[in-house]
């Protein structure tokens, strides 16, 4: 028997107090298998020990939420008996170690979270962040991650419809790979993970268990250092084909009334799925590991319990329905094995080769899990220093040329053309818009989905940043005409044991709470990834928001693409020309300090609600929100997409870089046929919303006050140039 030494306990990431609690609760020393189980369950990744006291303050309910956080994914009501089920998850560290497989298995994992609840996945998104483009690893990591995401999603036949890509040197050694999946199910056919029925069978289905990713859960929570290369555990390799079969088999079995509870084996594999299912149902669980289908010979109980082999699920079913269930998995050529039973002991009991390997009272693992109120300090940047702005003499068009061809504003076509974004034939709005639109199959309604974060704002002012990320997601959904319903989030931060990092977390969450409340946009699922830090250098705080909204009638939605000449271009929302934390400040002024633009949440809501009405009721079909890069970038994107120019007519005070490139929040650009103009203005004025006509759609150029101009063709070439040249050069 393995001796449990102090070092071994430490290696498992369990601190002194935690270990003492284990000894006291068990009244004996743990076995090595038990130590592994504690280590996995109490890792930051599974236990949320640094974050849960903050997370529980987030609003999680509105009249559409069916299931908030706590299940495999969140569930909202989208009408007609349909539910949308969604979640986002990080796979940051694995993707840094092996970009292709790390990203691929991230996509595989998030899809299982969704179909384990009975939903067919209908859309994938990804939010990916890399270091400086000039950093030696960036290109390799990016190309591996993108092909991994595509490799898995494409094979599954689920369209990847949106996402975001950012470059920033803070991610040089800590890339972020967050994947989101949205599925659709019938409300009365949703499956949950709460085990029930003493004597019911615990059934393992899917691929066999190997030594993949053992200690993956602890790895995901441990800071990297320079010799992480050495400690590298076996990487998980994804098998999208196996997952496609698993998906079809699970959905087929779910049409029958056989499954009592089901959960995928994600981080911490069999351990977390068994413990969580039993704990939720307040029952005990006995497992016989001899019955677990293994890929390798001589796997130990420790290894079987902690393996993170992919494409596996755990189900609870009644013993007399096993044959019926097995027939389905046989048809799809997947393993099916009854590996245990539910008991009334409230213990997790594990046997292997006729020996007792673990016996732990479940509430020690779950409610006994540590939870920390870590000290925090919220740090904000000083006010933005405007004095240098006036020194910039370049013409607006010259600046537009630079920005539209810069790493963070150029087109991401190189990325999304590698993703099948059309399979399933329901992608109404493909990548390139503010939000993707996916038709709910067989209906005339659509889901609008987007994934967003603005880490530089969060870093400069965590609370303002927290408000902004939620508002931006809401705005992106609103821009296509959807009613935003709820979000999933993925909170990527540095080491929470540092006060200022914990302060970022606390600040961002507080800001998010305000925005979620005001915008009635609650959080229904999410994920936290901490310790994104190498050699003491953390990433920018990066809360990625995955928003989902509903378009009731697909005859009316809008896109940024300019559709006609002679439309009036209207800028909605007040422009102050604030340049703090803008892309302009970074790229042109080389200034990354200063506060980000403010978000006025009440105003945000008022404006967005009217924009949505304009789309749904007054049939405005061309809308774009203003985000990174400001007004002129947003206009350029609209012109490029529609291949129609705009003649801008600005007054003198507006002819400055602040007006054209500032990132004031809560603004939209719409393009309105003249026949709709008076009713549009009336609606806006009626609600007391500031708007101004800034020009007309016309020709093939952007022309500012008859002086400066650039052709759409040139703009498009610039927009498409950087990414392709970077990756292929």
């Amino acid at each position, binding site marked *: 028997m393995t001796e449990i030494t102090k070092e071994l306990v430490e290696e498992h990431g369990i601190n002194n107090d935690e270990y003492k609690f284990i000894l006291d609760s068990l009244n004996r020393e743990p076995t090595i298998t038990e130590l592994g189980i504690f280590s996995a369950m109490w890792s930051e990744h599974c236990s949320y020990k640094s974050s849960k006291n903050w997370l529980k303050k987030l609003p999680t309910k509105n009249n559409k939420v069916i299931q908030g956080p706590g299940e495999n994914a969140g569930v909202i009501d989208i009408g007609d008996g349909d539910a949308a089920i969604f979640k986002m998850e990080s796979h940051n560290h694995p993707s840094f*170690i*092996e970009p*292709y*497989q790390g990203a691929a298995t991230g996509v595989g994992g998030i899809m299982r979270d969704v179909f384990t609840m009975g939903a067919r996945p209908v859309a994938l998104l990804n939010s990916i962040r890399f270091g400086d483009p000039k950093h030696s690893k960036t290109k390799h990591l990016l190309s591996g991650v993108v092909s991994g995401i595509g490799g898995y999603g494409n094979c599954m036949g689920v369209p990847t419809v949106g996402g975001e890509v950012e470059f920033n040197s803070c991610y040089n050694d800590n890339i972020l790979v967050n994947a989101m999946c949205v599925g659709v199910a019938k409300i009365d056919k949703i499956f949950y993970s709460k085990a029930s029925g003493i004597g019911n069978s615990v059934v393992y289905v899917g*691929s066999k268990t*190997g*030594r*993949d990713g053992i200690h993956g859960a602890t790895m995901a929570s441990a800071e990297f250092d320079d010799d992480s290369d050495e400690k*590298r555990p*076996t*990487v*998980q*390799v*994804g*098998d999208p*084909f*196996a997952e496609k079969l698993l998906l079809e088999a699970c959905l087929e079995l779910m049409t029958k009334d056989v499954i009592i509870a089901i959960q995928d084996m994600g981080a911490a594999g069999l351990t977390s799925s068994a413990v969580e299912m039993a704990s939720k149902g307040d029952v005990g669980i006995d497992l016989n590991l001899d019955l677990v289908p293994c*890929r*390798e010979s001589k796997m130990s109980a420790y290894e079987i319990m902690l393996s993170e*082999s*992919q494409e596996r699920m755990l189900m609870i079913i009644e013993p007399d329905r096993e044959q019926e269930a097995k027939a389905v998995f046989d048809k799809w*050529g997947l393993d099916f094995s009854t590996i245990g039973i539910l008991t009334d002991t409230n213990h997790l009991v594990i046997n292997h080769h006729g020996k007792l390997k673990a016996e732990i009272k479940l509430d020690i693992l779950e409610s006994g899990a540590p939870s920390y109120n870590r000290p925090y300090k919220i740090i904000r940047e000083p006010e933005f220093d405007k004095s240098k702005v006036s020194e910039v003499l370049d013409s607006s068009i010259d600046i537009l040329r630079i920005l539209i061809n810069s790493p963070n504003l150029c087109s991401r076509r190189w990325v999304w053309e590698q993703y099948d974004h059309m399979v399933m034939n329901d992608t109404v709005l493909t990548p390139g818009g503010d939000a993707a639109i996916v038709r709910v199959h067989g209906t005339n309604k659509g889901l609008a989905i987007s994934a967003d974060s603005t880490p530089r704002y969060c870093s400069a002012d965590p609370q303002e940043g927290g408000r902004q990320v939620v508002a931006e997601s809401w705005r992106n959904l609103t821009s296509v005409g959807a009613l935003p319903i709820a979000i999933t989030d993925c909170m990527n931060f540095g080491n929470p044991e540092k006060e200022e990092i914990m302060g970022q977390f606390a600040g961002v969450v507080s800001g998010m709470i305000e925005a979620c409340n005001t915008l009635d946009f609650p959080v229904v699922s999410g994920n936290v990834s901490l310790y994104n830090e190498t050699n003491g250098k953390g990433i920018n705080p990066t809360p990625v928001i995955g928003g989902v909204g509903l378009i009731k009638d697909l005859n009316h939605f809008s896109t940024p693409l300019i559709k006609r000449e002679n439309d009036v271009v209207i800028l909605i929302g007040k422009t102050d020309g604030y340049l703090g934390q803008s892309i302009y400040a970074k790229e042109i002024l080389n200034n990354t300090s200063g506060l980000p633009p403010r978000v006025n949440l009440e105003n945000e809501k008022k404006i967005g609600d009217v924009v949505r009405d304009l789309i749904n009721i007054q049939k405005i079909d061309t809308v774009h929100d203003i985000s990174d890069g400001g007004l002129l970038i947003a206009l350029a994107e609209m012109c490029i997409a529609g291949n129609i120019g705009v003649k801008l007519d600005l007054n003198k005070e507006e002819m400055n870089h602040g007006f054209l490139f500032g990132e004031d929040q809560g603004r939209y650009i719409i393009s309105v046929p003249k026949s709709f103009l008076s009713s549009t203005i009336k609606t806006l004025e009626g609600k007391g919303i500031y708007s101004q006509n800034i020009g007309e759609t016309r020709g093939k150029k952007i022309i500012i006050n008859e002086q400066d101009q650039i052709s759409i063709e040139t703009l498009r070439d610039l927009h498409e140039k950087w990414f392709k040249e970077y990756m292929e050069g």
Partner: protein
Amino acid sequence: MKALVKIMPKNGVLDPQGKAIENSLNQLGFSQVGNVRQGKIIEIEINSNNEQEAKKIIEEASNKLLANLVIEDYEISFLKED
């Protein structure tokens, strides 16, 4: 000289392709077929008469580019020109 780099998935690393081929062969009635693993082979013409030197070059190329050492092992051999 021609170098041959044989790249196989590391022991213990899942090899979905190999597994799929194995299943397919079994279904086609090749009952004698057991475990199957799939790897890559890369043939490189190299301008050198010195096997020692060539080996060093190919090793470097394998480490840098050809093999993914996180999940793959490689083996180098040489074919003399014919």
